[in-house]
């Protein structure tokens, strides 16, 4: 153990002198997490400018404009009245508004007389979300009109006098469709971009440890230092343990530092510190095992660099370090659960949204440790040969 500590201390000293280690372990994850958080900030508090062209000014059109300007709608959109469909197209094209709704002249009368009439939505490929939301609002409004109409028709069919038509219509207009979707997240909180991308980037750059730790092993071997260690009364297992320990310490420090800085400076929510530390530590253990596997499989420094690059980017893509995994296709979501970083991301997301402690991340930790046991077992057999 003393020799393993000696080797680990020496490795860490070398790593700390290497500026790239500081950049990869600390600066890059903080910077990229901040940038991605900034880039995706709009997705968590979505709000846009909706241009409205009211060429009708009838009762129903007024009701629609009123609905769009209501306090409920104001949380996601701000209405800007536009003069004409041409102005709407120009403003959407120029990005002054994200989308526009055109209420044609005669719309209210057509609805009252049960003639088909269309609401036009002007959208831009640059903001498809705004277009989709506007389309949904329009569809919802049309559904409400249909429901009103159905109510009145039902009342008349049930024997209501024809002279009560206006009263019935007015009454129906005050009713709202009883079935409405209501957002009820499973956790108490919402997953903010910074809370997702802080662990995502910390883990992504932690994965890079595989690359430079395995490269460092082969540099040591090329420089004859592994041989020099083996010429001393040192067992191959002690050399491997020393190398593993340095990865463990470096990885833990990197993850912990990014965690502390992003939560204190950027407001990222990592959830329970105790559970987050355990989950992070499990992730670091899996990185140690993956590093040993690369050392065991590779024959040369170049091979080690190639294998680790494939591993780092493959895992990052599958595990959701670049994109929010819940937005991915079902196959990707399933594959993510077969990667240690995917499990870790799931755990950190749950800690941030559901809250709780160790119970919340028990399953991800167990899966990561199982993954580590499998890769570590294979690695030990192969890596011993690399040292010998």
């Amino acid at each position, binding site marked *: 153990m003393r020799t393993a500590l000696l080797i680990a201390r020496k490795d860490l000293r070398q790593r700390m002198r290497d500026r790239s280690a500081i950049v990869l372990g600390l600066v890059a994850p903080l910077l990229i997490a901040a940038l991605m958080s900034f880039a995706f900030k709009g997705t968590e508090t979505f709000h846009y400018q909706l241009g409205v062209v009211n060429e009708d000014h009838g009762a129903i059109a007024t009701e629609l404009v009123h609905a769009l300007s209501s306090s409920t709608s104001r949380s996601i959109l701000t209405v800007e009245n536009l003069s004409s469909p041409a102005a709407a197209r120009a403003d959407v094209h120029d990005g002054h508004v994200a989308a526009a709704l055109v209420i044609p002249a005669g719309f209210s009368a057509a609805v009252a007389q049960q003639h088909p009439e269309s609401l036009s939505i002007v959208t831009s490929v640059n903001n498809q979300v705004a277009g989709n939301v506007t389309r949904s609002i329009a569809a919802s409004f049309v559904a409400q009109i249909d429901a009103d109409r159905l109510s009145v028709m039902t009342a008349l069919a049930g024997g209501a006098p024809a002279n009560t038509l206006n009263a019935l219509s007015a009454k129906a207009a005050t009713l709202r469709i009883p079935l409405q979707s209501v957002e009820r997240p499973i956790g108490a909180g919402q997953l903010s971009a910074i809370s997702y991308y802080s662990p995502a980037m910390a883990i992504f750059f932690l994965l890079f440890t595989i690359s430079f730790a395995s490269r460092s092993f082969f540099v040591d071997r090329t*420089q004859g230092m592994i041989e020099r260690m083996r010429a001393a009364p040192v067992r191959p297992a002690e050399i491997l343990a020393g190398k593993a320990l340095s990865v463990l310490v470096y990885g833990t420090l990197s993850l912990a530092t990014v965690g502390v800085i992003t939560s204190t400076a950027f407001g990222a929510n990592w959830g329970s510190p105790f559970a987050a530390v355990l989950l992070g530590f499990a992730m670091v253990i899996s990185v140690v095992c993956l590093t040993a596997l690369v050392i065991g499989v590779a024959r040369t420094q170049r091979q080690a660099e190639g294998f680790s690059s494939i591993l780092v980017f493959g895992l990052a893509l599958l595990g959701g370090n670049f994109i929010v995994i819940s937005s991915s296709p079902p196959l990707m979501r399933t594959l993510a659960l077969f990667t240690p970083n995917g499990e870790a991301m799931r755990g950190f997301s749950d800690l941030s949204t559901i809250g709780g402690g160790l119970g919340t991340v028990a399953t991800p930790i167990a899966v990561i440790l199982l993954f580590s046991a499998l890769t570590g077992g294979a690695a030990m057999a192969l890596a011993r040969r690399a040292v010998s």
Partner: protein
Amino acid sequence: MAAMPDGPLLRCEKLRRSFGDRAAVDGISLSISPGEIYGLLGPNGAGKTTMIKMVCGLLEPDGGEVTVGGRHVSTDLSVKSLIGYVPQDIALYPDLTASENLSFIARLYKLTSDVVRERVAEVLELCELSDRANDRVDSFSGGMKRRLNIGAGLLHHPQLLVLDEPTVGVDPQSRHSILERVQEFGRTGMAVLYTTHYMEEAERVCNRVGIIDHGRLIAEGTRRELVERLGERDRIELSATGNLEAFAAACRALPGVDSVATTADAVQVVASDGRRMLPHLLEAGEPIDVTVNAIDVTEPNLETVFLHLTGTALRD
């Protein structure tokens, strides 16, 4: 240094090691006593480094055994504390200082902190690098790195020092300094196994020499013993131009010629009574248009022995 055992410190018995079908070391036995400097002399690829790696426990032999101080190298890890290994290539961390390198290597031998400090200072002094102790190794000259590389093998005061061609690529001044140090190690009672393909180094520093070729120890003894094997033979070097291979073949056919080898610009001949042979050798070159530019007749040395035993020049 710890108390020296009676008899040889290093014993190698019928060591064998193959790489694929090629036998790198083929049944070599040798022993080295305390205070003895043993030179393992042979051309590149003869099996010297493989032999050394088995002695240091870095390579498992296919057959045979190595003991140091009576303890088996392959089974007793602690025996490595008796061995100081100086690899052929510089094995130091370029991004650490001289002091940090030595301190790290010393601690691998489980020395206490006080002893480590003392030994690091001692080795830096020995390597004449005390004033560069806190400089990174990548700022050192080749000679300084070489000296430090050797010093790293001495930190734990080994009883057996194994040096694998320590002077390769070293300037003459540093080489001289290294050879002086090696002789000094022998005088202090350390057993030294020294591999080289420089005959003059082996002649200068080694008490006993083993000549290795194609993985076999083909001769062993003191310089005098080996040279005496040649009897009254001389080594004649004929610097010449023309078809040297044909010239060598013509020389080889002459009675009294024991062995002939060619180098890039010369033919080396081992023959009884060299001065008497000289006219015949010159005549042998005439029909094949070989022009002899210079002739050097020397007393037999280890190179002559090697040439005589293997039929090839040592630096082929």
